[in-house]
């Protein structure tokens, strides 16, 4: 039977009595900021070294004042022993601690000292020495346990043992860490088959210091902390934190920290480390271990389902959730937060990685899944961290593809996924489920054909090179003239790619055609047949980088082409484009761009920028190099091998017509923010804050886009092939025109102020996704969130919604009005361009409907006067 929660909580009465002092200062809190987080679950054990690259690529999300690593599945030899890990800041305390807290209470089966670098200063960013960690594989002594159980009336001896371990560590922390200035020692973790290591430093430093590179485990978390204050830091405040068998890291902070602390105090939980992460893990522990809730209810208590999403839940679920909310709503963390939990679910012998987002999705979060010989689930703050992780793993394990099969965002507190996903590893199988336990499966194309049955594709050398790459692509995907791509074997694709790359490397004149073909194969959706799309993409990524890197380096003579390649090592050799007379180099910031005639621009070569090695921001960033090159006269850029490089296309100044930037790899935040003319094409997914204050020009994203897309945009045109995360077009004014072919998660076009409701700015949501065959599939909810067009004062929202899935309850100050011919005249040209860019056919979007059946129009409420004005002009 399950132990009564009261028994567990009341057993702490005496221990916690000192905290009951009403004068006790529980209000001092260490302010927490954002952070960079990555979590990884693998069906087969995986080495710790893979955390290094993604963590170091997110070090700009931390400030080196706290890093941590959690590992689950690391002690298979001791699956049922509590791995009590004591971090000694002062080794002199060891004897005392062992004699007081370890040996009298535990039968210790094994003692291990975590290995570490002899001299921590070998890692120059470690400012202070990390704690020495000693691990005691322990079970509570029978005599001690039975006394404890009896004294407090425990019926479940296992629950008593858990609680004893919890209290023992709390006592230790209180005495040797809690309220003392000379912090001597603390328990890092005490869960089974798991551990936490943390220190003042960056996560990758922690992994290196403790020599985790070659350690193997199924679940890993790396965390970069960004605490706001404090000259003196202690590792105890770093993440992850632990309740019992879990480790929790956190990005964000709560507005109701004190409220949550008070709630926990009433339940005999008292924080010692004064951070909201500690508080969050106590909530998790309370719901999970003490109240015994299933994971779904734990998540509901943390991130409640509210508003419209609540009403969309099945009735039975509503009644359970209502009860949960009634009891726990006031402890639900309020504010921007994203939790990643790694845990060992001892009862079911399952290792889990869980990502939970707050209801408003205010922190960045990306999930990814790859299925195969080694299945991998990843959760991170940035997609680029996931890509870095997978590509590092793929280097050592050829069965792993450097591109995940699927990337997605959770929609916080929602009825469709619950805002949380769980990767569970058991018996070397990885399953991935949403909050409600529904499995996320990578679908395989219906047209799956055995390789042996495939006809041989025509050798790629037989393609008619006079045809445009798009025509070739169309023929390949339709199978007109050649066998369709879906029937090609991977080897044949490899052969094609190889052949094209060779051609581009030998003939510079063919380079742009080859790049275009490889790019369209990379960007577009089509039926890959039995092959995985991710595998094709991975090959194309490699091929494209190879072509790019074959370009003549900057500074070298080459009369055959104006294209040049520049990278980290020769970045200072930047000079004006060769095919043009050099511009005066005094084009100071804020000055006027020398106008470039069309023919001049046409003749000009492309500057290929290899982003490897650049800093993601600042003086040594690729973004800054683009600005310098632009001032020297370059107008066309291919920016590749991005790894979260921020501010690409920022700082170019006014009137940048004629510029074109093609971005490959994992681009970073604020891409194209402030662009005033020209085009940026992102070949893949884009990050957060893309196109902020966009003024003019065009942004084309061949994938998803992150949070606050086009915030405060003034004009220009933007096309997104996939979804936008939360809050796209918020506060946009003027005449911005946008098509999002997927959907937006929440708060789309809030405070939209884009003028006339017909002919002003607009947002089109097509509400589609693609199936594995590359065909369009309408989303069940064309727009799943709330606050669509809320508090808007101008412009229009058009939603492809023939089945009227969008309800009035999703608007907040907007109204649905008739879609008229004038509207179609406004949007049709954009849908046509959308078709050209992404191959999403207007006829497929209409799907047999006439435009005013397919599209619905949302305008600001009470904009009747404006509408009349429109009618007259």
């Amino acid at each position: 039977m399950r132990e009564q929660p009261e028994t567990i909580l009341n057993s702490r009465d005496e221990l916690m009595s000192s905290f009951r002092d009403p004068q006790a200062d529980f209000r001092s809190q260490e302010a927490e900021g954002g952070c960079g987080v990555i979590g990884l679950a693998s069906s087969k054990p995986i080495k710790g070294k893979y955390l290094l690259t993604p963590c170091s690529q997110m070090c700009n999300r931390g400030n080196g004042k706290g890093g941590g690593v959690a590992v689950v599945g690391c002690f298979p030899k001791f699956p049922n022993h509590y791995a009590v890990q004591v971090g000694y800041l002062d080794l002199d305390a060891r004897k005392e601690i062992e004699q007081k807290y370890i040996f009298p209470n535990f039968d210790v089966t094994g003692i291990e000292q975590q290995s570490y670098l002899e001299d921590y200063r070998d890692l120059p960013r470690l400012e202070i020495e990390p704690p020495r960690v000693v691990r005691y594989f322990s079970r509570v002594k029978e005599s001690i346990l039975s006394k404890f159980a009896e004294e407090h009336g425990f019926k479940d001896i296992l629950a008593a043992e858990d609680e004893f371990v919890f209290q023992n560590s709390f006592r230790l922390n209180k005495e040797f860490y809690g309220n003392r200035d000379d912090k001597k020692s603390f328990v890092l973790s005490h869960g089974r088959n798991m551990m936490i290591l943390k220190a003042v430093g960056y996560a990758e430093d922690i992994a290196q210091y403790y020599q985790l590179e070659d350690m193997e485990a199924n679940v890993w978390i790396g965390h970069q902390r960004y605490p706001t204050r404090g000259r003196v830091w202690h590792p105890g405040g770093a993440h992850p934190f632990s309740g019992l068998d879990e480790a929790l890291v956190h990005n964000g902070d709560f507005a109701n920290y004190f409220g949550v602390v008070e709630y926990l105090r009433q339940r005999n939980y008292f924080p010692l480390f004064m951070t909201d992460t500690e508080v969050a893990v106590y909530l998790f522990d309370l719901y999970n271990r003490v109240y015994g809730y299933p994971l779904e209810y734990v998540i509901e208590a943390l991130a409640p389902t509210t508003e419209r999403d609540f009403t969309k839940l099945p009735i039975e679920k509503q009644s359970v959730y209502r009860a949960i909310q009634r009891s726990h709503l006031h402890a639900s963390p309020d504010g921007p937060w994203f939790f990643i939990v790694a845990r060992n679910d001892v009862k079911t012998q399952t290792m889990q990685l869980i990502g939970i987002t707050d209801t408003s999705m205010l922190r960045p979060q990306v999930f990814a899944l790859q299925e195969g010989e080694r299945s991998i689930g990843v959760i991170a703050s940035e997609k680029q961290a996931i890509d870095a992780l997978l590509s590092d793993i793929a280097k050592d394990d050829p069965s792993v593809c450097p591109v995940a099969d699927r990337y997605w965002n959770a929609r916080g507190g929602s009825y469709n996924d619950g805002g949380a996903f769980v990767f569970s590893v058991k018996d070397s199988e990885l399953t991935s489920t949403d909050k409600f336990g529904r499995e996320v499966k990578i679908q395989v194309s219906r047209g799956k054909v055995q390789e042996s049955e495939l006809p041989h594709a025509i050798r790629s050398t037989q393609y008619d090179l006079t045809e445009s790459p798009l025509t070739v692509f169309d023929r390949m995907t339709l199978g007109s003239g050649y066998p369709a791509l879906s029937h090609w074997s991977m080897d044949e694709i490899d052969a094609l790619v190889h052949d094209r790359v060779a051609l581009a490397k030998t003939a510079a004149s063919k380079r742009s055609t080859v790049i275009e073909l490889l790019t369209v194969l990379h960007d577009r959706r089509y039926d890959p047949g039995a092959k995985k799309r991710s595998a094709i993409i991975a090959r194309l990524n490699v091929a494209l980088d190879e072509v790019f890197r074959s370009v003549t380096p900057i500074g070298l003579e080459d009369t055959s082409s104006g294209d040049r390649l520049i990278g980290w090592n020769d970045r200072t050799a930047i000079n004006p484009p060769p095919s043009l007379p050099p511009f005066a180099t005094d084009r100071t910031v804020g000055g006027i761009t020398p106008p470039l005639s069309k023919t001049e621009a046409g003749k000009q070569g492309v500057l290929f920028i290899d982003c490897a090695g650049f800093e993601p921001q600042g003086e040594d960033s690729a973004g800054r190099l683009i600005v310098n090159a632009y001032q020297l006269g370059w107008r066309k850029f291919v920016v590749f091998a991005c790894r979260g490089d921020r501010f690409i296309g920022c700082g170019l100044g006014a009137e940048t017509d004629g510029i074109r930037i093609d971005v490959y790899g994992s681009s970073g935040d604020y891409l194209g923010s402030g662009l005033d003319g020209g085009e940026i094409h992102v070949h893949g997914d884009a990050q957060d804050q893309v196109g902020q204050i966009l003024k003019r020009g065009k942004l084309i994203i061949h994938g998803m886009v992150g949070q606050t897309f086009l915030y405060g945009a003034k004009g220009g045109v933007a096309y997104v092939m996939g979804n936008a995360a939360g809050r796209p077009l918020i506060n946009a004014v003027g005449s911005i025109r946008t098509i999002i072919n997927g959907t937006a998660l929440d708060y789309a076009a809030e405070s939209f102020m884009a003028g006339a409701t017909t002919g002003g700015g607009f947002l089109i949501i097509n509400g589609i996704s693609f199936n594995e065959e590359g065909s369009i599939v309408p989303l069940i909810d064309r727009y799943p969130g709330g606050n669509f067009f809320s508090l808007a004062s101008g412009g229009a929202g058009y939603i492809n919604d023939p089945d009227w899935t969008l309800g009035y309850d999703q608007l907040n100050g907007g109204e649905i009005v008739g879609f008229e011919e004038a509207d179609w005249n406004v949007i049709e040209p954009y849908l046509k361009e959308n078709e050209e860019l992404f191959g999403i056919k207007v006829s497929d979007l209409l799907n047999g409907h006439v435009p005013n059946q397919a599209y619905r129009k949302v305008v600001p409420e009470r904009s009747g006067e404006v509408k009349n004005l429109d009618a007259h002009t």
Partner: protein
Amino acid sequence: MTISELSLAETLPIANKVSKWWVARSDACTHCTICVDVCPTGAHTAGEGFVRMPQPKSELCIGPNCRSDGRNCVTECPADALRVESNQSYEVLGDPRWPADLLNATWHEAEYGVAPRNGLEYRIGRSGGGFDRLRFKVEDNLAVIPEQGLAEAYQHALAEVDMHLPLNRRQDEAEAITIDTPWYGGGMSYGSISLSVMLARASAAQRLGYFTSTGEGGYPIELSRYKDNVITQVATGLFGVREETLQWARIIEIKYAQGAKPGLGGHLLADKVTRDVAEVREAVEHTNLFSPFPFHSVYSVEDHKKHVDWLKSINPRAVISVKVSTPDDVDMVAVGSYYAGAHIIHLDGGYGGTGAAPDIAKKNIAMPIEYAITKAHKFLEKEGIRDQVTLMASGGLRTPYDVAKAIALGADGAIIGTAELVAVECVRCSNCESGRGCPKGIATTDAGLTPIIGSHWGGQRIVNMYSAWLGELALLLRSMGLHSIGELRGRTDLLRYIKE
């Protein structure tokens, strides 16, 4: 500030002043001229070859206690023909923060370039709290300088006291900007104030060597004439923020919150969104414009760092200022902003703000600025980074004495808003947001109202007011034995609290 620069002040007297006292002469007057002899301020004059005594000049009267010997025109009038009473119109002017005396004193400064010595209280208001409860210990013993000699006294004091304020204290890529006054102008948007008032503010900033801020309503092209002295503000609505205007600026100010209304956004009514306003904000004429709270791209300090990095990516030379209100963890905010790369931390307390902020918000949400300054200053010191960052305070700083008090509490300098509007004759009616806007032609974009203020006239009045401030500050500092404004920072020992 050199002596020659101070001569920028130029007398701009106006005809019909609101007088504090009402002096009346009845028909019983025998025209004996005794009152002319008794009056120390010249309120009673008898011109050459007068026949009848003219009506007294009430605006010159300093009240019945004008003489140390207890005599005055009323007591001395043999015909009992004179009355001196407080002016009832004057009584209703202003509010506790900006009482009639302070308004009149500021107008006096704007007109003459010197602080009044006619009994008007020009140093504090009557709010009963905040800076009005603080005095410099030395104040009671300050030498009395008659108004005639004041301009010269200012010049001498200024020659001895260094008023320069460095704004960038980090050794980094950004420009090392130093301004000539220990303050600069706060953000007021185009739309909330008229273009001519913006130009007046900017021209004054240029002439005296400090900065003024665009506020969040964009950057009117006319203002770019003064771009070396204009701060481009990046606020939550991002109106009119574009790369060009960010690259013009030597200082970029990120406005996260306003002390008068922390946690609240803004709303510019469609009526005020004229064609010109819409153009500058890159919006559409006659639509309601909203500024959200908060910045939707910044929900944490790590986002904030990224946000600062973004602005640096557009203009690497710009000095970055971060304007925040004063929550109870203002110290943490200040430190976090510093580590994110800010050069200036601008704390905006709850006393200031526009007439348009909701009454319930004003003074009721943000922490009083005098507490916030001290809290942030001490914490930055403890953190060991105090000298790498410039701490600016704003929110109801009205006088040179307020500026000095803010600095003595731990700020490096002050940011001034309302006082500049008072200098151009704002009467504090608090109707900024209503109807066509301000009856004085300040807080309006109405084509019929804006011509009331000319930018040259307005600029000169602001120059005059600040000339008086500089002089007053220099006199005060010198009297305390200080040789630079920097030496005053954190000298709370020079202050005392008035219990009353």
